């Protein structure tokens, strides 16, 4: 079984984000870039599935500039068998909209044997959360998004996800797209052996087929500043004043 894991290189969630001088991108200084955490859940689950299904292979694929090679290297260290960089000479990713990302991935994966495409439900940078379903529709295959549990029944994938506050159990036969939600697993740390082995592997580089953008970025700004805090006092004595302000000033009660 060929399991493809699209991964995105994103700023670590502890990073502070500032617009750069152009106002069209973020300032990359002091930012540590990592595998998108949700893609990491997808990768972990793919590695577990691979080890359960004989003759399977996990291939990590990333769309982006040459720097995206760092997250592919990390995926190899975690245990991915191969890695492919769909190289696009774009900076941090703000200039790729979700349709371009979906189309570039779909264009490449159409040329490959695919049984499962497993990616994060959302990337923590632009947070659209739609590339999985875009890709599935484009490839004409079913999808189960935001999954919290996955099993291989021998013929189908059976997955659970939360819909309208309920757990829905869905089954589909390969090929299909799954997107990973938090709670699916606890991703492994790359073992030392994996890190060493990853250094020796080559990352296959393929030029990305970029379609024309549908969305144009106009500007990035810092979020609106909040008013300074009013400290109302210490301990329970401050409670009556808090209730008064919530009613009369903030008007939220």
């Amino acid at each position, binding site marked *: 079984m060929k399991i493809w894991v699209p991964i995105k290189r994103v700023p670590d969630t502890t990073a502070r984000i500032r617009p750069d001088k152009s106002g069209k991108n973020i300032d990359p200084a002091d930012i540590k870039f990592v595998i998108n955490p949700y893609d990491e859940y997808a990768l972990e689950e793919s590695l577990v599935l691979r080890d359960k299904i004989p003759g399977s292979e996990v291939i990590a694929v990333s769309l982006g500039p040459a720097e995206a090679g760092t997250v592919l290297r990390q995926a190899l260290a975690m245990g991915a068998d191969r890695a492919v960089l769909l190289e696009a000479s774009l900076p941090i990713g703000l200039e790729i909209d979700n349709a371009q990302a979906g189309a570039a991935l779909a264009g490449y994966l159409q040329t490959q044997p695919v049984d499962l495409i497993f990616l994060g439900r959302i990337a923590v940078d632009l947070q659209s959360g739609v590339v999985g379903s875009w*890709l599935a529709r484009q490839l004409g295959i079913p999808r189960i998004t*935001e999954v919290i549990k996955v099993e291989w029944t021998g013929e189908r994938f059976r997955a659970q996800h939360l819909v309208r506050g309920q757990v829905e159990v869905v089954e589909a036969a390969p090929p299909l797209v799954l997107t990973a939600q*938090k709670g699916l697993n606890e991703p492994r740390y790359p073992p030392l052996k994996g890190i060493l082995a990853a250094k020796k592997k080559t990352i296959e580089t393929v030029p990305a087929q970029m379609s024309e953008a549908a969305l144009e970025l106009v500007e990035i700004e810092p979020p609106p500043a909040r008013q300074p*805090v009013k400290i109302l006092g*210490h301990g*329970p004595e401050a*409670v009556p004043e808090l209730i008064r302000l919530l009613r009369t000033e903030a008007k939220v009660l």
Partner: protein
Amino acid sequence: MSPMNDANILVYLESVEGQVRKASREALALAAALSRSGCGKVAAAVLDPLAREAAAALRGLDQVYFSPHRLFQHYHNEAFEKALLQAAEDFRARIVILASNEIGRDLAGGLAAALGTAVAADVTQVSFEGGTVAVRRPIYAGKAMAAFRFRRLPAVITVRPNAFADVLAGWTPGAAAPALVELPEPAEAQLRARVLETTAAGRKKTDLTEADIIVSGGRGLKGPENFQILEELADVLGGVVGASRAVCDAGWRPHSDQVGQTGKTVSPKLYIACGLSGAIQHLAGMSSSKCIVAINKDPNAPILQVATYGIVGDLFEVVPALTQKLGTE
């Protein structure tokens, strides 16, 4: 034909137990505002057979697409996507709007791929300018704001819950009820994925992203059993309980309760953070709340930098006092 009036809007109304979800009503309010500012007509698609009457009562819409088919009683992305594409085609919709929740995201990607466009996701402002759609939206969970413009239509948009007023709040009933249009019966045999079952395990009354009031707890709660204190305050306020990443990772609360960059981004009217220091990825997920109250022992906790009101003190004393005072008034 002027391009201005061509841009008909289709809104997907998601419902639970026959009631249109609040986030969908907000999406509809946005569609109505766009229509008033020069877009075309507005239609809604409501696929839950139980919600048909609730949708038809929303006067001012031009059309309501519905299906009486039992297949739509449960969510099935292939059937729903196909029905929405049929409605969009019939209505000549150039803009499709959905709420940004698990179903809205799942459908938006599929619809955008089918329509050959991208999704402007989780938007907090939308305008119709020069024959196209411009949006603003938080990125990096609110650490920055970005403005985007669709180069061309069609456009698919998901709307951030709590960013727009509920349509029922300012709705002026039109003279006529909307025309009801029945969608073709779905071809069940063509569906590839099968929904085996749904279970109501751990179901919340209100989704965190749609809640008006959230009472959230961090490691200062000291253990899962102490969240009862927050549940009691949330009950008095008619709110729901959220949690920090540390708390969810420790297994004290389910991951679906997590607020932050790797959880849910929320903007309630009132967010009460208890025993929660405010890691940057948590602040990102909640700092667009209208009013933030922080109850924390540490006067230097980062949460106080984004709070509207702060009480320095032991949450085990302050929170019950707050619950009691509110409960007896």
